[in-house]
């Protein structure tokens, strides 16, 4: 046991490990906040869809040789999020089909571009690390760290500020709108925040695993808690703790960061399910 702690304290002296922990926990925090809303609005897969869009955008950015690809990825993803979340009932192609269409489309285009135009020698390695985020969290520059921390803080502040409205729009959109809450504006806000979170989270767990960060905390918290506030607070803690443990574990044992975090999330979910079942029986 003391061996592990020795190893850990040694790793902690490296700045990249500290960066990874800080950024990981911030991203986990904000991805969990809107998870509850997305799960309840039946949009669990939106994270997945948008992350594929972000992947496609990243490929385009790489081909066009942008120096900082965030500048390109963020607006594209935000635009797609708005497209997917806003249309509502009036669209011709309904929710899940639209998500599936955009996500596989972007994935295919992204991979094709990377394959054809990439200057790197190791294309499949690049693709793999974009999809599963294998090491990018450990190679963050100071700029990336600040960007992630600032964007996450903005997301958290926005969420707190609009918390009551987000609740109202999630629970009953038509009532909210009928009584004068500008439901469309808040749906727009939710879409933008989600897109920002997705782009941030790509660094942490890669495109394919982002949904896990969004839905596992919310679903786990919903097993145990019964009010919107307690579910939200619990899923935030759940997500941060799982991300922390996941990153530590992966640093010590050399497992891929993204999938380790998701595995910890799954274990947490199982624990909460059991707690929920036991608690449910008592009632």
């Amino acid at each position, binding site marked *: 046991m003391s061996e592990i702690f020795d190893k850990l304290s040694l790793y902690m002296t490296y700045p990249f490990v500290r960066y990874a922990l800080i950024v990981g926990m911030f991203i986990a925090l904000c991805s969990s906040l809107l998870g509850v809303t997305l799960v309840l609005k039946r949009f669990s897969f939106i994270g997945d869809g948008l992350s594929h869009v972000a992947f496609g955008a990243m490929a385009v950015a790489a081909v066009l040789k942008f120096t900082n690809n965030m500048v390109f990825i963020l607006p594209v993803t935000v635009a797609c999020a708005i497209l997917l979340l806003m249309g509502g009932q009036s669209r011709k192609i309904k929710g899940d089909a639209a998500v599936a269409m955009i996500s596989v489309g972007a994935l295919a285009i992204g991979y094709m571009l990377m394959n054809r135009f990439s200057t790197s020698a190791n294309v499949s390695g690049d693709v793999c690390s974009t999809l599963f985020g294998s090491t990018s969290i450990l190679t963050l520059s100071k700029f990336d760290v600040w960007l992630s921390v600032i964007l996450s803080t903005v997301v958290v502040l926005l969420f707190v500020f*609009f918390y009551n409205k987000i609740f109202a729009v999630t629970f*009953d959109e038509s*009532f*909210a709108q009928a009584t004068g809450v500008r439901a469309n504006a808040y749906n727009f806000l939710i879409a933008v925040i989600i897109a920002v979170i997705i782009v941030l989270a790509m660094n942490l767990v890669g495109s394919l695993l982002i949904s896990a960060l969004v839905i596992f905390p919310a679903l786990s918290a919903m097993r145990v808690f*019964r009010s*919107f506030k307690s579910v939200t607070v619990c899923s935030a803690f759940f997500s941060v703790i799982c991300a922390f443990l996941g990153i530590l574990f992966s640093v010590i044992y050399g497992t891929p960061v993204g999938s380790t975090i998701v595995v910890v999330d799954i274990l947490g979910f199982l624990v909460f399910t059991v707690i929920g079942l036991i608690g449910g029986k008592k009632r």
Partner: protein
Amino acid sequence: MALLECKDLSLGYENRAVLKDLSFKVESGDYLCIIGENGSGKTTLMKTILGLKSPLKGEIIFGDGLKKNEIGYLPQQTPVQRDFPASVQEIVLSGCLGKKGIAPFYSKEDKKLAADNMERMNITSLARRCYRELSGGQQQRVLLARALCSTEKMLLLDEPVAGLDPKVTAEMYSLIKELNDKGITIIMISHDIDSSLKYANRILHIGSDILFCKKEDYLKSSKAFSAHGGDYNE
């Protein structure tokens, strides 16, 4: 001036009119029941009054200082709500949001209003309970309390007794009647002609032809019989 006046309304989806040339007035203190077959446009009419849809033609005029966001609404339950983790208090409080504009948090007055309305609906003891664990009748009371937080003037109810057992249905009707007696104008969509005729003072029958009249006149017209025969068992 009437509290609410609809003039030559045409309603529908994508230029296909469901309802045409609808005109009626609702005075302060009225209890209006909207009846008609499925698909005749009852819910569409309600959504238009609430401003969720725009009419194809015609206009809706609010009078007596009624503002658009001062209409309370009791919608039909959506599937999302059935497994929504929310406490009763959170839901009732959300009825106060409409008036608050951009202000992010609930004030003391909002909390007092919510508490008063929960007391009125007799659900104070449920305040900390989870919405999805309540019975159908209790859930309707919660949504009614929420609607009351957003209005003191007019309530729109979309089939408030759908899926409730007879005893709870009767309670619900007398609760609504009490609110009406206290001066809140009620507009209700209903399938239940008997109860509509018992409590309402005005009837709007929509369908292939439109009839808007006082309850007494409705009873005299032949519509009452045909509607009764057609809709009674639903």
